[in-house]
């Protein structure tokens, strides 16, 4: 539990003394210029996940940017998302209601994930696993609603190259952006289930070694899993603002 990566591998961790740095900007520069690990008290697992998420940020940025570009450059009116994503409930059209519910579900899943991380560090096996399973359930619900939304739009005639309401670029942007995000959620659910199983089995209490990595199991993997999950929620915040509300 206490090891930083360095201490597990002799020769690397000995120089890491995070408390000996000046505060603020100078401390950051000393960290970076020290010819050691730059991220002193951050484990390799967490640092690598953050760097992966940074690269994923660029991928989603490119999707949203290409959406901005096609929407700004088309001379045909853009379909009104408020009407396109309205649901007919109780005799009237409620604008964007499905998307709003999906947003609340994803936010709730982030909340349960954050609490799972917390209970993980308290070594509360049952609560951690249950909260992770609840997170996975929310995630699966989200993907299910997205499948419903895709089905609805496809039966209404939306295709990547045309749609009944306006600019053809609407369809390609929609399928690309929400499809890629939905894939991320799906993979998140799969990994949540895998790690929840490990938590339940007690892998992180007994430091059971990983099947692929042979490294000792550690509750920090729950936090790293959480980082990925919160990122998926974060991307949805931007998709919701730029694609559905704009």
């Amino acid at each position, binding site marked *: 539990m*206490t090891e*930083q990566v360095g201490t597990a591998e002799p020769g690397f961790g000995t120089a890491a003394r*995070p*408390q000996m740095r000046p505060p603020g*900007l100078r*401390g*950051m520069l000393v*960290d*970076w210029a020290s010819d050691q690990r*730059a*991220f*002193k*008290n*951050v484990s390799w697992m967490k*640092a690598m996940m*953050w*760097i992966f998420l*940074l690269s994923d*940020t*660029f991928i989603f*940025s490119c999707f949203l*940017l290409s959406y*901005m*570009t096609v929407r*700004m*450059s*088309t*001379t045909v009116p853009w379909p009104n998302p*408020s009407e396109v994503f309205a649901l007919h409930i109780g005799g009237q059209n409620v*604008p*964007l209601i499905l998307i*709003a519910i999906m*947003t*609340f579900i994803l*936010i*709730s899943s*982030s*909340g349960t*994930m*954050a*609490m799972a*991380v*917390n209970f993980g*560090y*308290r070594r509360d096996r049952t609560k951690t696993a249950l909260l992770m399973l609840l997170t996975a359930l929310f995630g699966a619900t989200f993907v299910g609603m997205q499948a419903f939304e895709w089905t609805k739009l496809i039966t209404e005639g939306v295709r990547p190259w045309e749609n009944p309401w306006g*600019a053809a670029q609407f369809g390609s942007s929609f399928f690309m952006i929400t499809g890629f995000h939905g894939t991320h959620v799906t993979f998140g659910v799969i990994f949540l289930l895998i790690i929840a199983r490990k938590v339940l089995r007690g892998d992180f209490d007994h430091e059971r070694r990983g099947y692929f990595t042979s490294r000792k199991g550690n509750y920090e993997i729950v*936090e790293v899993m*959480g*980082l990925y999950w*919160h*990122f998926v*929620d*974060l991307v949805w*915040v*931007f998709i*919701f*603002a730029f694609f*559905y*509300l*704009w």
Partner: protein
Amino acid sequence: MAQATMAHGTAAPAAAAHRDSHQQHPIKLYLVVWGWLFVLSTASYLVDYFHLQGYLRWSLILIFMMLKAGLIVAVFMHMAWERLALIYAILVPPLLVLVFVGIMAFESEYTFFTRLFTGAGS
């Protein structure tokens, strides 16, 4: 068993660093953030529900979006308690995307006016 005692013996000096790297906050913090995310999401939904238009709509959408993103990154992803070296390494590069946004917005305007005046494409 001997190993376990040894691990406990060496754990004491590392305890401070350990608290730094392994996040431990009261559950209430997460519930409060969760509540705020609900409020902000509702607010941004209401922007659409009440058909706000123009600059008011766009600025409200952006404000609510940034507040939500900030809460998620800072609290849920624990960025507020990470070292500055990691914070800058992760948060500064995405800001450069704004340059890309500027370039593509400029290009889009050009394409738009070309289409408008030549009647080509859509």
